[in-house]
């Protein structure tokens, strides 16, 4: 509407010409971007290794966000609901894996069954089974939530479903905070495997001992980062396969595209919606364990902020788009780490949301988002 070609009543000075090209707003955004870029370039010049270190940390965080963001983006794509309870499902995933490891020693079960195997096989299989347990419990939980809370409201106004989602989120949090559930205290998460850190420096890859942390001439990374990145990529590929190649995935895409027609084509729409919730929640469950491995202090409210960040990542990438969620999450991870390191650590959430608002102003439906189309 702003690009009317009507002649400007006064003389067309450079100023007015500039306004017609929407120059002023763009200049404002570009100057903000340039300031940020300038800070980063100065930082790279001052200490390139520290910068790379921050990037590695950001990638690690970004992949965890990606796993959570996928649940938001899939659910939004299919029922247009911002599922605020998703962050709390993530919290439940972390706690389930905590109980699996400390109470039931689930990460060592193979050692008890077949004692002769090497330790890394035992722990590897054990950790995978803990993740699978967390994923299954979260999928089941999300399925139940969908059936009880969201399904009866499928035809109600959308805001009712949103308020219900907030209600479910409150319920999960404060129920988890009860003394006999997960307790209101911070709990230390026990990693199923020992932490191993390496340093990539000028003289190749070195193994660092437990105590030797403050080396400044190389990028430090740990097996935690490797595990998070590799398992996230595996889960993402798996999801991509499910969505693109299987019958369920095809049905999911059809339901997301047009629900009534999908129903006419014989697709069980309610079942597909439940499956979508369950798949998203299982990814959040896995993310819960990975997040707890990286930041081993878990509490009933731990899902709120990562959930929100992941949601922002999903919006940033274009909500409803799976590659968009990944890209958005990686951008969020970098933005959070770099702004914490180079701009202001306490203000990093404000910076993350400023980025969100700016991206929305430039691309109103996110980076990969399709322009909203009229549906019948």
């Amino acid at each position, binding site marked *: 509407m702003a690009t009317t070609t009507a002649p400007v009543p006064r003389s067309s000075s450079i100023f007015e010409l500039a306004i017609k090209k929407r120059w002023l707003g763009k200049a*404002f955004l570009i100057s903000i971007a340039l300031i940020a870029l300038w800070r980063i370039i100065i930082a790279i010049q001052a200490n390139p290794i520290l910068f790379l270190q921050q990037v590695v940390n950001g990638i690690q965080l970004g992949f965890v966000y990606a796993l959570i963001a996928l649940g938001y983006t899939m659910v939004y794509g299919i029922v247009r609901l911002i599922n605020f309870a998703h962050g709390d499902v993530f919290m439940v995933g972390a706690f389930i894996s905590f109980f699996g490891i400390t109470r039931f020693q689930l990460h060592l079960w193979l050692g008890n069954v077949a004692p002769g195997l090497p330790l890394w096989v035992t722990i590897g299989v054990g950790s995978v089974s803990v993740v699978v347990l967390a994923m299954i419990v979260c999928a089941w939980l999300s399925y139940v939530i969908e059936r009880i809370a969201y399904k009866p409201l499928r035809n109600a106004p959308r805001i*009712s479903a949103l308020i219900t989602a907030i209600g479910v989120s409150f319920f999960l949090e404060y129920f988890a905070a009860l003394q006999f559930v997960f307790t209101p205290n911070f709990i230390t998460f026990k990693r199923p495997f020992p932490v191993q850190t390496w340093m990539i420096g000028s003289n190749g890859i070195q193994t660092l001992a437990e105590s030797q942390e403050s080396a400044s001439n190389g990028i430090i990374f740990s097996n935690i980062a490797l595990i998070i990145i590799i398992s996230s990529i595996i889960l993402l590929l798996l999801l991509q396969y499910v969505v693109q190649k299987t019958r369920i995935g095809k049905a999911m895409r059809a339901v997301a595209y047009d629900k009534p027609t999908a129903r006419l084509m014989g697709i069980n729409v309610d079942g597909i919606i439940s499956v979508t919730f369950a798949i998203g929640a299982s990814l959040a469950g896995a993310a819960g364990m990975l997040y707890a491995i990286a930041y081993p202090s878990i509490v009933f409210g731990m899902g709120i902020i990562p959930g929100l960040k992941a949601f922002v990542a999903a919006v940033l990438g274009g*909500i409803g788009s799976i590659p968009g969620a990944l890209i958005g999450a990686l951008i969020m991870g970098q933005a959070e780490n770099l702004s914490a390191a180079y701009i202001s650590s306490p203000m990093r*959430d*404000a910076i993350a949301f400023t980025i969100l608002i700016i991206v929305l102003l430039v691309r*109103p439906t996110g980076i990969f988002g399709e322009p909203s189309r009229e549906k019948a």
Partner: protein
Amino acid sequence: MNRMSRSTLVFLIGAVLVFGVTQALFSLEILTSFWSTIIRTGAVMAIVSIGLNLIYGFNGQFSLGQWGFYAIGAYTAADITWRWANNKSADGLVVMLLVTGLSGTAIMFLRAKLARIRGLDALSAFTLYLTAMILLAVLSVFLGGFITPAVSGLLQALPTALSMQIVFFLAVLIAGLIAAEISFIFGLPVLTLGSDYFGIATLGFSIIVKVLLDNSDTMFGFVEMKGARGMVGIPRLTSWFWVFLFLFVVVVVTRNLLRSSYGRAIISIREDEIAAKAMGIDVAHYKNLTFVIGSLFAGLAGALYAHINGFLSPNTFNFIRSFDPMIIIVFGGLGSITGTLAASFTWALVLEGFLRLWLPEGFETWRYVVYPILLLLLMLLKPKGLFGDYEIPFLRDQLPPLEPIAPERIEEGIPPAAIQASATTMPVKPSDNPTSQEASE
């Protein structure tokens, strides 16, 4: 005319009665200060929620930013009265008066100038307004230094209680105005986004405000706000009289706004934005107008809230709590002022009052477990809220609401032509209401 003035009379008498009886109960200490705090909180929530109902319930803009403007109002007013109560200095008052006054004038002036430029996009306008407001804020701080001693002396010459009330009253108005001005500038670019994205951007705004408040002492030099630890020592000035006065004014202003041609334009945007635009309604202007008025109410409410407990913490303004006004308006019924009023007081009484008292010993932590269950039950049983779109006669629009013609009315003898005409012009399908229309997009 006669009927209208009767409903007005009933409303006025009712308001005076409610005020008098509650004030008497407070004065005679039949209701303890515990209940007094809860009722005043309920009234404050009613003001915020009416603001949000205007934005979402009547104009259809899904905003989660109300809590951010509430926080801005709370901290602005609290800082002004804190400086007066603890330092006997009117610097906060003078500077903020100058900021709001100058920015308001600048916004009016720029609006008149910019209206002549064709093809000015919202982001460029935003940049201009923002630059103007920042420059004027710097200028205000500079000018404030000269004016403050005179104003401080003038106020100190008055009796302490009177000067306190004057500062408080001005602080509340300033808080409302600053929230309105910020929302005007922020709303310009953000209101161009689609419905959900607007909600997300405004949610981002509330979170940004919360983070800024967390760092108010370390990064911005407002030592008295004490950052995340919370601001203490705010004079407790929000009496039932002040809350009730502001609530009354807000209700009457909202009612009169909605009954004017402005109100019909606002509601038409909710019903169908494209049709409203086709009818010649300046959609962007009315959206921003509603957003500004809603945020003005949020700012007022925040200022009143700050002076109830004398304590402010950024945690009050976090993103979880930002859904409270949204919950209240859905609970009361979208697009119903009566419902919002009832729901605010019910919400405050149940959540802060009864749930604290009724839960047995050792089950205090169950308060927030019971609350979402109640919320879920309400949503499942009454998805349109307690009151739907019912209004008491004083608040009701003179025009009868558009209702789809039910089949049984055909038998009532309405000429078929009229049915056909209304059926073809009816924008609302039988099962639809304002929000499900949006959902079907």
